[in-house]
C-alpha cells in the first residue's frame, strides 16, 4: 500500500478462523522486532505493516514476513484472554434497544438475553483508539446500521451493526444501533496498555443496573 506500508491479506471474509491467522502473523511479526517497522495494524482479515523505506527495503520486509508466516504453524500462540464487561441496557443508555426489539418482533428482554449469550471475539481495534470490533451476534439479532447516524454517541455506548457489536470509547458521531452503556474505560492514553481490549480477546457481556453503573469503580 503506497510506498511505506504492506498489507498482507489472509482471506476475504469476516470469520474467527481468518482472524486467528491474522493474529498469528501479527504476534509472530511483532516478536521478531524487525528494524524499520514503524507500526503494525491487525484487522479482520489482514495485517498492515507500516515501514520506513529509508531503513528497510520492501523486498527484505516481504521476505522476512514470508519466513515468519511459513514458520507460524510451529509457533505456539498465547491463549486469548476472556474479559467480562458490565452493561446497562436500554432507556437513556440504549436508545435503540426498543427499535431493535420491534425490528425483530421480540421484546427488549430478548435482545438483552441474546446479546449477553455469546462469547465474542475481538476481531480488531480500530476506527478510534480503543474501539473493539467484535463478533458475531446471534443470527436473530443481526441488525442494520442506523439510517441516520447520530452526531453524538456518548463514550461507553455499546452498539450493534450487522453481525458485529462494538463499544465507543469516547463520545463520537456514530451509526451503530446503541443498546446500552458500560462504565468500563476502554481507552486510557496513560494506561499500560492504553486499550482495555486487544485483538484476539474473548468478551462476554453481563447486565448491571443503573445504580451499579453510576457507582462503578474499575
Amino acid at each position, binding site marked *: *500500500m*503506497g*510506498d*511505506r*506500508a504492506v*498489507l498482507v491479506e489472509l482471506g*476475504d*471474509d*469476516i470469520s474467527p478462523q481468518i482472524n486467528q491467522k491474522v493474529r498469528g502473523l*501479527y504476534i509472530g511479526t511483532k516478536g521478531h522486532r524487525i528494524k524499520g517497522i*514503524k*507500526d*503494525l*495494524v*491487525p*484487522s*479482520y*482479515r*489482514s*495485517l*498492515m505493516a*507500516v515501514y520506513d*523505506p*529509508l531503513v528497510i527495503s*520492501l523486498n527484505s520486509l516481504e521476505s522476512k514476513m514470508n519466513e515468519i508466516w511459513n514458520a507460524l504453524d510451529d509457533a505456539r500462540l498465547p491463549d486469548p484472554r476472556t474479559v467480562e464487561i458490565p452493561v446497562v441496557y436500554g432507556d437513556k443508555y440504549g436508545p435503540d434497544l426498543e427499535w431493535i426489539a420491534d425490528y425483530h418482533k421480540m421484546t427488549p428482554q430478548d435482545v438483552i438475553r441474546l446479546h449477553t449469550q455469546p462469547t465474542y471475539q475481538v476481531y*480488531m*481495534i*480500530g*476506527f*478510534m*483508539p*480503543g*474501539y473493539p*470490533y467484535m463478533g458475531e451476534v446471534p443470527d436473530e439479532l443481526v441488525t442494520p446500521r442506523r439510517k441516520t447516524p447520530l452526531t453524538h454517541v456518548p463514550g461507553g455506548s455499546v452498539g450493534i451493526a450487522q453481525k458485529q457489536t462494538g463499544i465507543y*470509547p*469516547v463520545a*463520537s458521531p456514530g451509526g451503530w444501533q446503541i443498546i446500552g452503556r458500560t462504565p468500563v474505560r476502554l*481507552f486510557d*492514553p*496513560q494506561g499500560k*496498555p*492504553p*486499550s482495555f481490549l*486487544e*485483538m484476539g480477546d474473548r468478551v462476554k457481556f453481563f447486565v448491571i443496573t443503573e445504580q451499579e453503573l453510576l457507582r462503578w469503580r474499575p
Partner: protein
Amino acid sequence: MAAVEGIEVLSPGLQTTIQDLGRFGFGRYGVPPSGALDSFSLRIANRLVDNPEDQAGLETTLMGLRFKALNDVCIAVTGANLRPQVNQRPLEMWRSHVLKQNEILSFAGPESGCRAYVAFGGKLKVLPLLGSLSTNLPAGFGGFEGRPLQKGDVLHVDSPTLKLAAAGRELRHQWIPEYPSTWTLRIVWGPQDGDFTDKGKRIFINTLYAVSSQSDRTGIRLNGPEIARKSHTAESIISEGLISGSIQVPGDGKPIIILGETVTGGYRKIATVASADLPLLGQIKPGDKIKFAAISLEEAHRALNEMESKIRSSFKTSDHVREQGAGR
C-alpha cells in the same frame, strides 16, 4: 531564579495544536499517528532553532494565532506564509530569530499555504503520551490537554537560553517550498485500484479536483466526477489498515485523502500519495485544486530519498560552521 519560561497564548486563531512527528507503534490499539501534517516544515523549523528534528512545535491553521514571549526564546516559523509579524513588523520565515521577552508574534492571514509551524529553541514542556507530544483531536488526548490551544494557555519551554545562539540560521533559499493553489500530487496505485472501472481510474487521474470546505486534519475531501466501481463490487470492504495519504473512494465516488488521524477504514483505496509528497497535504486548503500523477513504487522511493538528502543538506555553509561550533 527562572521565572515562567515560555509563551502565553493571546489568541489561538482558527486552530493551533502541539504536534511532533507523530505517534507510531500503537496502531493495534486503534491509535493513529496524528503529528504535524507538513512534517518537512516542522523538521526544518526544529533544525533552525538547533532542536532535534522530531521535537514538538506549534501547528497553526490559516490565521489568527497570537502569543507573547514570557522570556527571550529562539523561534523559527516555517510552512505556510500566514504573514507572521513580531510587534506588527513582518518576520522573515525559514530563519531563526530571538523573540524577546514581551514581544508578540502574530499571524495576519494566509498569503500561501494552509499551516504554519513554530519551533522553540529548547523543549516544549508537555506530557508525552504513548511516546509522542502530538495532539490527537478526535480522541482528545496528547499535546496541550488533548485540545487546540486557547486564549490564556501558557506553554513552558525548557532551558530556552541554551538555544538563543542559534538565531540567524536560515534554510537555503532555493529550497524554501512554494505553495501553489493548484497542486500535482504523486501517487502509487492501489491497494484496491483493480476494483474500479478503467474509466473510473482515467477519471481519477485526469480530473482537476476541487478541495471541499469540509476538509480538516482528518482528511481532504475532493469534489469532482464520480469514480465508478466495477459492477460486482460492494460499496464497502472489510475494514483494514490505512496510512496517511491513502485515497479512499466511498459510495458517492468522490475521493478523500486520509490524513494522520485514522488507522483503519472500510472504503476502497484507489491509490496512495507518495511519501515524498505527504508534507504537501498539510498545505492544501479548501478551494485549492488537485491533480494526481501516477508513479511507480521505485520512483516513489527515489523521490523520498531525494527529499531526505535535501533536508540533510538544507542549510547554508556558514550555518553548518555555526552548527559545528555550537557543539564545542
